């Protein structure tokens, strides 16, 4: 076990290094830079700015300077804000995005599997169709439309729901609902197909023939086994939810990390692009690792030596 984890961590570190390097190269090959503005800024002022942020140095040198800093856990100064460093921004934005994401995940985990089970138990009958229609509707409306509709028709008409912003629990209701739609639908559909598969297995038939009540069969055997595939996608799902959705954050005015990431790219805020990318990559990789490990505990059939295959 320990050996396996060490190996996985080592591979992950190499992966992250590759991501850093590629993003660095990519970022600097995209045109545009953080300091151009629609102004009469004379060349001297522009050069002062480049100098301050070390952008006047050759790229390989900038790269090594960056890596050295990174090893100390310092993501550097943002090129657009003189108030917050990149570390500050991540420290502030991540909990916001993560809170919203977890809340959305809870909603998805409450209703997704239930919908899936209902659908599977009534395959090709109306409850199946109904729950799948609900699930698919959730992923059929783009979130920028969903968010706008939520604001226009729910928040505007329900007095205790604030229209947008951040601060109280009421502020989190609509955005987390909007965020939950996608994973909810995904989980429901996954649950449905894995339930169907399990219900066709011999041991379920055996259990049934033994005279165990239907609800007991479903709950004790089918659901418990059908939940496995959901555990395996949870890693990606959680990491996607944690880092936040820039669309939902933009529409609802939420000071999360997803928004910082997108605006850093359009502002060419180099340090913030690097910082958020690395942070995302780490979260994704850690989640995948955790899921792999969790899988071992949930499903003893899987052996670590097979590298999670």
């Amino acid at each position: 076990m320990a050996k396996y984890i060490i190996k996985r961590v080592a591979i992950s570190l190499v992966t992250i290094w590759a991501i850093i390097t590629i993003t660095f190269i990519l970022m600097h090959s995209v045109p545009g830079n953080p300091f151009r503005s629609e102004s009469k800024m004379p060349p001297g002022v522009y050069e002062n700015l480049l100098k301050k942020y070390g952008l006047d140095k050759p790229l390989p040198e900038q790269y090594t300077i960056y890596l050295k800093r990174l090893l100390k856990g310092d993501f550097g100064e943002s090129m657009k804000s003189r108030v917050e460093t990149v570390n500050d921004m991540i420290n502030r934005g991540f909990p916001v995005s993560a809170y919203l994401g977890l809340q959305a995940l809870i909603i998805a985990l409450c209703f997704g599997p239930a919908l899936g089970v209902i659908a599977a138990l009534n395959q090709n009958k109306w409850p199946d169709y109904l729950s799948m229609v609900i699930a698919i509707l959730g992923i059929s409306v783009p979130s920028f439309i969903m968010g706008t509709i939520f604001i226009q028709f729910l928040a505007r008409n329900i007095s205790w729901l604030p229209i947008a912003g951040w601060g109280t629990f009421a502020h989190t209701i609509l955005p987390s609902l909007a965020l939950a739609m996608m994973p909810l639908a995904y989980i429901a559909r996954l649950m449905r197909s894995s339930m169907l598969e399990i219900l066709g297995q011999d041991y379920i038939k055996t259990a049934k023939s033994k005279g165990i009540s239907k609800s007991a069969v479903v709950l004790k055997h089918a659901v418990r086994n059908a939940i496995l595939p959901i555990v395996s996608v949870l890693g990606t799902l959680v990491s996607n939810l944690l880092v936040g959705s820039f669309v939902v954050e933009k529409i609802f005015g939420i000071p999360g990390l997803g928004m910082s990431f997108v605006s850093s790219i359009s502002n060419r805020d180099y340090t913030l692009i690097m910082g958020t990318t690395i942070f995302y990559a780490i979260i994704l990789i850690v989640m995948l690792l955790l899921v792999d490990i969790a899988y071992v505990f949930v499903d003893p059939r899987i052996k670590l030596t097979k590298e999670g295959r």
Partner: protein
Amino acid sequence: MKRKLAIIVSLILALAMLVSGCGGGKKSGDTAKKILRTNNSSEPGSLDPALAQGTHESWILDHIFEGLMKRDENGKIVPGMAKEYKLADDNVTYTFKLRDDIKWSNGDPVTAEDFEYSWKRALDPEMASTYAYQFFYIKNGEAYNSGKASRDDVAVKALDDKTLEVVLEQPAPYFLELTAFYSLFPVNQKVVEANPDWAKDPSTYVSNGPFQLKTWEHKAKIIVEKNPNYYDASKIKLDGIEFSILEDENTAWQKYQGGEYDFLSPLPQAVVAQLNAEKNKELVIGSDLSTYYYNFNTKVKPFNNVKVRQALSMAIDRKTIVDKIAQGGQKPAEGVVCFDIPDENGKDFRDVSGNLIKEDLVGAKKLLEEGLKEEGMTIADMNKFSILYNTSEGHKKIAQAIQEMWRNNLGIEVQLENVEFQVKLDREKAGDYFVSRAGWVGDYVDPMTFMDLFVTDGPYNDSGFSNAEYDKLIETAKSTADQKVRFESMRAAEKILMENMPIAPIYHYTKPYAQKPYVTGVSKVVNRDPSFIYADINK
């Protein structure tokens, strides 16, 4: 698990509120505090005046600082921190006498040394301030900023605690107005020297204006409250202003409509059009000191040809663009200098110069063909060119309308190319474009803020325009103190510019905003954001 429980409980609570609270009437009698709520759109990059760049910083700074001069309720430039000033006969030496009763928000007196320190600090190359060039009017300002002179060479000096002497490079009648500009606001020398990070935290933040910084929740909101140490505090009626930070224009409008804002600027274009059409009382169309224009890259064929440029400009129906697309009370452009700038006789500079832009939908085609022939090109060659604009709904609509006008009136099919703002700026600098959207918002109320854009190799002269006669006229206007000579030179220069048409002005912007009926006293000066300093809430 706890959170899950919390959700269920709060959902039930929420439901209960829904049932019981449908009657509305949630307002209790708290009119004790008058807090005006509005939206600042973007997180400021810094609230240090020396580091401020754009409107996201300046709107807040305008309320918490005050310069040597300030604007009164009607927008007139009047003494602020200074009680009087003197301009010597050389037309470049200003002496300001500060008021006696001025204090920082922490109680320290505001001194002339503070001003000297702040201005030199902003010019310090180590500060790398983007707006350092606002100080380049001061003698040796630019030299110090680019490392060619020392800090002591900069000609700003505190003669004593209350007297400040400034020497300019050249006469600049608009310098007084500039002292009310946010880059030139002072900072407290003692505070800044003791704590370089003073501007990052409201608890260490010190300012000298009508309001002071109270809360700054990053990317969420900024609250300023009345500054009791402000010398004119009795005139300030608001207890505070809450600027939320919400980027999505449509959401912000929903919040305004839902009563969560008392004031909103900017507004979504479609909303302005609608409010304007129905003559809604909450809409105010403020004037703006700006021009929306298209650059032609005069360095590439066929845009090097003046006839081609003229023809393209002539084929744009500006009135239709303003009436049907922009729809915010903008004025069709009549030149590069916008309206509302007084000349030497107090008349509107624009009106005196008249309309310098020709529109002739039929003649344009002939002219284009002539021009293209001179360059050895045909109409079909025009189809490979594109209009470069930065991603924005408004710019997109106008670009599409112009594309269609050129197609209908000239028979050419240009492409559209939208890129991010930073890419557009970079490509304009590199000359990697054909036609590009641009705009200019004046820094001060004088035609010069527009005119000196287009001198040879000017920092924002992206069309690559270069005309010796034009350069000479601008130089004359900049070096003279004779108002008549100055304005005549600028008039002549604008004519040359519009004959050569390196840019095609489209319209002069406006600044529409919405305010609830109970908000009064908001002043909108031509080149500044709406000011709440003298505003009041009468609920």
